[in-house]
């Protein structure tokens, strides 16, 4: 069954812009990205939107729908009523390029700052051996599709541009956790996480977890465990003393 929905879409660039109103046809089974494409085809041929797989796996079509960071392709129109006005804006934590397209290079900068996987010296890539229970904890984090919704919603950088230098954001702190929990990684990443990538800025308000389209428990399974590992290394005198006496590492 079709109906005409009221859409407000932000149009503009870094110099300025505004929310523009559209009345657009909606059909059963469609998602918001379908409606944006219909707008492009019928009313706003130059509307800029980034998209690719339309299956929630490429992470390209991140935007904000009624103020909530979402994937355009995974937001069903059936979640709205016919009377709802649907407001679509670009991600608000990153510089806008045009319309719904933002410059997400902040994330690429942060990705490059994380040292790569560091296996034991002398073990060639084909010779990695590990047990499943040792590696499965960090496999959850490999589900990340790099849509950057968590980076966008995190108030540490969303509301404070000046923190972008010192804070890697939840996606890359999760990457550090993934490597730190990896059974073959030998780099000490705990102090790095706190001193260089700004783990201490995280106040665990869990917005990253709330918006993750892959339902990764970023806060509970990555950020808080990393915070506890930092406590082991930097703030817990008993653990420090224990490590001095028993000299156990890499347990």
């Amino acid at each position, binding site marked *: 069954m079709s109906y005409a929905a009221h859409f407000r879409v*932000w149009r*503009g660039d*870094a110099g*300025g*812009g505004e929310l523009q109103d559209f009345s657009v046809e909606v059909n059963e089974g469609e998602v918001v990205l379908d409606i944006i494409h219909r707008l492009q085809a019928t009313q706003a041929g130059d509307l800029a939107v980034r998209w690719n797989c339309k299956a929630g796996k490429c992470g390209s079509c991140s935007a*904000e729908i*009624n*103020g*909530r*960071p979402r994937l355009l392709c995974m937001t069903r129109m059936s979640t709205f009523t016919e009377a*709802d006005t649907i*407001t679509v*804006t*670009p991600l*608000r934590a*990153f*510089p*806008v390029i045009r319309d719904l397209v*933002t410059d997400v*290079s*902040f994330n*690429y*900068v942060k990705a*490059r700052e994380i040292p790569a996987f560091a296996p034991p010296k002398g073990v060639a890539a084909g010779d990695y051996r590990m*047990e499943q*229970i*040792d590696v499965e904890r960090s496999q959850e984090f490999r589900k990340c599709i790099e849509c950057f919704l968590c980076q966008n*919603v995190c*108030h*540490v950088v*969303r*509301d*404070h*541009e*000046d923190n*972008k230098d010192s804070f890697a954001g939840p996606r890359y702190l999760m990457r550090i956790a993934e490597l730190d*929990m990896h*059974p073959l990684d030998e780099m000490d990443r705990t102090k790095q996480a706190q001193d260089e990538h*700004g783990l*201490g*800025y*995280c*106040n*665990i*308000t*869990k*917005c990253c977890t709330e*918006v993750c389209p892959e339902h990764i428990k970023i806060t*509970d399974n990555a950020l*808080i*465990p990393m915070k*506890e*590992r930092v*406590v*082991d290394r*930097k*703030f*817990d005198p008993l653990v420090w003393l224990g490590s001095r006496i028993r000299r156990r590492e*890499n*347990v």
Partner: protein
Amino acid sequence: MSSTPPLRGDSAPTLPSVDASAPQRAGTDFPGRARIGERTLRTDRWWLQPLVTVTVLGIFILYTGVRIFMRDYYWVEEYSYLTPLFSPCLSDSCAPGSSHLGTPLPELPFFIPLPFLIFPILAGFRATCYYYRKAYYRSFWLSPPACAVAEPHTRYSGETRFPLLVQNAHRYFFFAASLLLLINTYDAILAFFPDTGFGIGLGSLILVANVALLWGYSLSCHSCRHITGGRLKHFSKHPLRYKAWTIISKLNARHMQFAWISLVSVMVTDLYILAVSAGWISDLRIVG
């Protein structure tokens, strides 16, 4: 000699510089970002969750704040009911029979609450808890009030500085609170064995339920999860700790629920004992 223009992807992206001397602004209205102006475009009732949190936590803080300064109605001698807020009672000011561990402390002046040693541990355990931190950072400090709703503060340093560095002491509060919980468990068992012999009353059942919920809250704690096995890199070398970590991880997924239910259960338990002790109601006896 003309230089070759760099190919796409040749140079690493860099962050745009931020003028540190410029006035700091909160929210998403930074140069270069989409100029939308609204603090949030959310249309749902995002303010409801912080409002409920402020209300319930506010009631709890007010209730316990008043209660710990009261020196009466925390002990029902007839049925051996001792409120968890005052256990263990350690001073000569405690009601006769309520001090299971003796009274190493002298009489306390009126302005020092009887549980002045244990209350900071209980409050500290909850205040540094990872779940409650989320709850009060959002609802009391509005940092942020809800996801994708701009916060009002112009600067933000998170938990990188004193006093919020103290949050890192959570595991010590966990250890201390667990010791107190052992004593609470002993209290709950004692409530079945008053001086008159074995008996079961509504009060003893409430005490047991409260202790069970408190154990649920303590064992599901993120620090407990880390200590049990979370800090390990190789689960395969520690099968017992891995098993324990697996169980605690399941509890940990319910930590928020345990946090709220146990908060209410502590208040309900204390209120029931207050009501019985003050003679407002009589304990419903099932056996004995």
